[in-house]
């Protein structure tokens, strides 16, 4: 067991290992992920209320450090940054062209994450690490990243991890797991999930956990589980989406969708990127830069002569179908971890769980609206 005071020691220990410690902090009316200097940067006593298209902070009044649910940022920002350099090409007079590999990423990371985010990282691992090709940039950031997962005690109304089995407990894939118990004595149950996790943990001021502590921690996540009311019926989503390719629901949602791409960009698993040349004015140097892209952009599907998916309908369908359906074909997992970000951060509050339920309902009562 750790005292709340041990958080400073933890952050110091991580920084002491040469890591850039990134975790939750309050900025611009939200809990975002940023570099932490000490536990004082954590969102102490701040919680969040989320709904489709809405997010507000409130004072919890209990001093919890991790009393929030999914934030507008996700670990993606750090492991797969919005822009990275792929290579630099140089023309040294005449025709000769030289290619240079990009610099290695900056300092390795220590990330404070939530259980669903651990799963999201695992999903991106499948894309960037476990396919035929390994993405060098992602791999080097990921390999060194020290993951501290904090189990969830205060899910938001937008969360549905329980439907996808990604939370609120953390089951593995972390270096260090914490469960914050606020009731009674404010304390943390800590577990190491790796050797380096154990090393770090061993160096922190602590006392052994009693059964009562374990029970209190289990109650935290159990309480969280009970409070999650959003459900997604995951039964054969793949088939459902495949059968729904021509559903009129796509037109209906396209009327509401702004094609602004917020959903895909806040999603912790979406991995689409584009690559472009950034050239020097004199034309002797060029950098190929990779940037986040989204299937909501028309260029995403552009091939000579026109885009494959010009309509909003087709773009929304791509997003939902990929996330919940074809992702399984491509990477053997669902692309969704149930964090609810796409629901909260859609400016018009389009709710993926509702859209999927509508597709299912239309299938079950095919002639409902005739």
């Amino acid at each position: 067991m750790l005292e709340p005071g041990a958080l400073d020691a933890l952050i110091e220990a991580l920084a002491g290992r040469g890591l850039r410690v990134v975790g939750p902090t309050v900025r611009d009316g939200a809990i975002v992920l940023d570099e932490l200097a000490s536990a004082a940067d954590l969102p102490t006593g701040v919680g969040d209320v989320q709904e489709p298209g809405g997010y507000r902070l409130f004072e919890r009044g209990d001093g919890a450090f991790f009393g929030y649910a999914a934030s507008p940022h996700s670990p993606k920002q750090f492991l797969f940054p919005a822009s990275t350099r792929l290579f630099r090409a140089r023309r040294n007079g005449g025709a000769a062209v030289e290619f240079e590999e990009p610099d290695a990423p900056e300092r390795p990371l220590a990330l404070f994450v939530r259980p669903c985010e651990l799963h999201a990282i695992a999903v991106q691992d499948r894309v960037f690490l476990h396919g035929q090709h390994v993405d060098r940039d992602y791999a080097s950031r990921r390999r060194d990243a020290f993951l501290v997962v904090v189990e969830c005690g205060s899910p938001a109304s937008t969360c549905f991890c329980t439907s996808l089995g990604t939370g609120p407990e953390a089951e593995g894939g972390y270096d260090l797991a914490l469960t914050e118990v606020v009731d009674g004595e404010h304390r943390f149950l800590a577990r190491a999930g790796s050797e380096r996790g154990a090393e770090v943990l061993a160096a922190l001021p602590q006392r052994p956990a009693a059964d009562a502590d374990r029970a209190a921690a289990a109650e935290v996540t159990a309480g969280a589980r009970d409070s999650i009311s959003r459900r997604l019926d995951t039964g054969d989503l793949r088939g459902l989406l495949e059968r729904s390719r021509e559903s009129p629901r796509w037109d209906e949602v396209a009327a509401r969708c702004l094609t602004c791409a917020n959903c895909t960009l806040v999603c912790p698993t979406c991995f689409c990127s584009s690559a472009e040349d950034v050239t020097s004015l004199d034309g002797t140097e060029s950098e190929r830069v990779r940037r986040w892209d989204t299937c909501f952009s028309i260029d995403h599907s552009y091939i000579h002569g026109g885009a494959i998916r010009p309509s909003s309908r087709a773009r929304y369908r791509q997003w939902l179908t990929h996330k919940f359906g074809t992702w399984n074909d491509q990477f053997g997992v669902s692309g969704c971890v149930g964090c609810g970000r796409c629901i909260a951060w859609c400016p018009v509050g389009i709710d993926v769980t509702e859209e999927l339920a509508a597709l299912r309902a239309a299938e079950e009562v095919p002639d409902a609206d005739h």
Partner: protein
Amino acid sequence: MSALAEPSLAEATVPRPFAVAERRRETADTWTLELEPLGGPALTPLPGQFTMLYAFGIGEVPISVSGRNGERLVQTVRAVGAVTEAICASEPGAVLGVRGPFGNAWPLELAEGRDLVIVAGGIGLAPLHGALEHALNHRERYRGLTLLYGARTPADLLYRVELAELRERGGLQLEVTVDAADEQWRGHVGVVPKLVGRAGFDPRDAIALVVGPEIMMRYAIEALADRGIAADRMFVSMERNMRCGLGHCGHCQLGPTLICRDGPVYSAAAMAELMEVREL
């Protein structure tokens, strides 16, 4: 969590420099380049695979490998936009970046002992050229060998000299058609799928490879199916926007697949349904 693999250089996102060793004009807007590695080993792509070709400071695009000439890659490129224009304008000696090869290959083993029917429209002959070359080089492994090729006009036909030689050489049933003939044209007039009905092959024991515009591929497959070739014996090569070739950028999704990884070659059985869906 599984061990994290060390990224290896072979999988690098950094291109290797290749020099344009030779450049031939095919049509008004299409050129064939022979690319020679500047140091490092030669690439050994299989027929049907593609590379990502990088034009300095302009961009990078997927281009099929049309064949090999010793250490050189042979690639045929139609200039349709900034990158392909820059590639086509690369004079001998110019340096391009090459990554790859990527993607799967034409299932040529499957065709061994059978009739091989190659159906190409326009620039679509480029991705098929490697397969044709392979089959001609190993002619004995195949029974009948047919190339049905169409272009808009006689001036749009690729590899004209080579095709004329092949016609002389024999061992290949070659039918060429154009949508619009000029005065000198003595061959067929009409769309490629129309050639399918007349061609001599045994549909029960044939493998067909088809590349062209999506609409042409649909009709060709229909015609081949009408002749009796089963959908799982027909193969097409698909195109989508592509940024990485590594399965990482998400652009080349085609329904449940990623073209750079699962394609570009697919059986018609796998594609038939997807090709029916608009804006997929």
